């Protein structure tokens, strides 16, 4: 099973950004504007196969590391939110390594870290609850301004479910993806799952069989 690598140049990356990333220009502080614009375009794009350019975002974080006066917390929030739903779980951490304690104390970033905690531990119910907390005073959710976030997230959760489960109660899926029954049934139909009463059967995985790896002589 191969997943598009976060490090291969995405087809949607414009040439000027690519040049920037492979050159000494990446250290030039005036390029933060270019990279921030690029991030905004990524956030506006709801198509999750083409809207995350990790290398470009890491370059932006590095510029912030070298020029802390240019640091924009909102930009960081969006970069982290995008990394949160990336198919490769290590992406989020790679972004974190370029930050500092100070930055992490910012309210929205701290909240993202906490959300990530629940997501990583597959505590999906808790995640949805905390993310869209009705008691939250902030008017915007911490993942605001990111097109396709919910869908990207659901795709991630579904991938985990299909990897782990062979049969799972319908209600459990509803809780995990935060959708009502009808929406889940629609999802099941789309993915070709068999629904039997209140139990969903996921496609049989052929790898789950005891096998002995022998060498070819």
């Amino acid at each position, binding site marked *: *099973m191969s*997943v598009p690598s976060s490090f291969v140049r995405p087809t949607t990356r414009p040439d000027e950004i690519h040049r920037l990333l492979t050159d000494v220009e990446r*250290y030039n502080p005036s390029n933060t504007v270019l990279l921030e614009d690029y991030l905004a375009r990524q956030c506006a794009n709801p198509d999750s196969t083409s809207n995350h350019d990790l290398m470009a975002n890491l370059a932006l974080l590095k510029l912030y590391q070298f020029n802390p006066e240019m640091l924009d917390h909102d930009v960081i929030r969006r970069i982290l939110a995008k990394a949160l739903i990336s198919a490769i779980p290590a992406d989020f951490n790679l972004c974190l390594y370029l930050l500092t304690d*100070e930055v992490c104390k910012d309210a929205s970033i701290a909240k993202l870290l906490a959300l990530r905690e629940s997501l990583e531990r597959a505590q999906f119910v808790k995640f949805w609850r905390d993310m869209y907390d009705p008691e939250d005073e902030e008017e915007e959710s911490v993942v605001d301004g990111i097109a396709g976030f919910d869908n990207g997230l659901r795709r991630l959760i579904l991938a985990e479910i299909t990897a*782990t489960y*062979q049969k799972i109660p319908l209600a459990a899926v509803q809780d995990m993806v935060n959708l009502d029954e009808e929406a889940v049934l629609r999802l099941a139909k789309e993915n070709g799952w068999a629904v039997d009463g209140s139990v969903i059967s996921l496609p049989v995985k052929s*790898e*789950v069989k005891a096998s002995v790896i022998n060498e070819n002589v």
Partner: protein
Amino acid sequence: MYQETYDDEEFVGNIDVVADSYANVDEIEDVDVDDEELLMQAQAGVQSIPEQVRTFLGYLHRNLQNGNVNDLTYNYENQFPKLSEKFYAKASWPEPQYVAALVNDDGLFLILYRELYYRHIYSRLHPSLEVRFRSFENYCDLFNHILNSDGPTDLELPNQWLWDIVDEFIYQFQSFCTHRSRLNKLAEEEVALLKENSQVWSTYSVLNVLYSLIQKSNIAEQLRTQQQGGDVAEVAGEFGVRPLYKMLGYFSIIGLVRVHCMLGDYTLALQTLEGVELGNSRALYTRVMACHVSVYYYVGFAYLMMGRYADATQAFVHILTFVTRTKQYQQRQQVDAANKKVEQMYALLAVAVSLSPVRVDENIHAQLREKYGDQQHKIQRGGEEALDVISELYLFACPKFITPNPPNYELPEVVVEPQAYQLRTFLREARLQLVVPTLRSFLKLYTTMGIDRLSSFLEMEPAELKNQLMVYKQRCRQVKWDGGSDLLSGELVPSTDLDFALEMDMIFIAESRVGRRYADWFIRNANKVQDLVVSLENMQKSVVANAGKPQTPDTVVA
């Protein structure tokens, strides 16, 4: 920036020197009363240099001028350490201005001498802030000469020396960053000096040097052309075709990898190695053992931080096997110098293998068990203790992290600690990754198990267990390098041999085992028998030849 009032006990002499101008003992035109004393002290200083050292310096100077790289290698790798040990084990080498008198003030020689002189202070003594500043200036002089002269310099140095220059340059940079971040230990004058001279040892200047060396030598194009089998001399350019520039450019690539890791940018570190073929036994980094070890250390470390434990393990095992096998063929001090990194890598390997169990080569496995067997057990048991052990190993083995900017001198209470931050971020990953070995040890024992049973074994709620099983699934898939030139690429593959599926509340477990490998054993033994047969036949032939007796036709073999 002149430190006339700066009290510095470590300086061997007591002369009030102004940076960049070293009094030449022979030319004393503008002498006034103060300088008289200066002159006397200078003469005394020159006299105090032991005969052996004077001879050594003479040879060094001559070899440098004539470009005798082989002799220089002997001077540098044998004589210099021996003399350091004998005369200067606890002191610094003679001051550069005294040595100037011995070599007729040869500017280039003095720059190189000063590099050695400061390097010695850093390794045996404690460098003062003034020493740090001076050393930086010296490096600027050196790199200016190499990069900004009107054309390539004629200088030629042995590879080990070139590597040591780059290595030490980065080490002093890191040492400086660490020193200035300890605001509460700095004296007021020091803080004032640091504020005034923010360009000294600045991150940008260090990066500038490394990138300039890389660009000047066209090393990236050279490596690419070499891989494709083209004519390297064509793309090398005027500077890059000379070994000094080529090797400095190459070592700067490795140096950059180190700097990126120190700043926490692991992806850029691996990206920088594009073109450096890892696994190629004739790659340039194999020429200097310390460089070879360094490359693999930083690659392995970067993979470890990225959560690619299998790749990290592979890198560490590769270099550790190499070091063990070639130890007897390497020079003593090279082995010693690499030793610290080797120990650190065993520690990191212990962490990687405990977090993501894989089979490793027998020898390495034995060494690992001997050094860190206890720690590995503790990690696999999980819980808080596991994290403590991981922290301990990590802090022993990680590079010294730095921040690119000077601290805020006005706010000494705000302490930025990149070391602690990186550790904490890594630990969060590790804590989750620990789910794999702990669950695996239970799942290994069964082919089917109920959720309730397992949750009671692990003492957690069934709902929580289901979450953990999902985490296990996610974590047992890693990106694994496919051996190409791009170290960042790779395929997502399962990294453990244990797989399972959940049906409602029942877990079905499948384990894939590696079958007995008989091919290798048969091949080896078949070869042995073959050798035996051949040697017997040869013995028979020689008996026949020596006997000289008439033989029956069928034993006379051609």
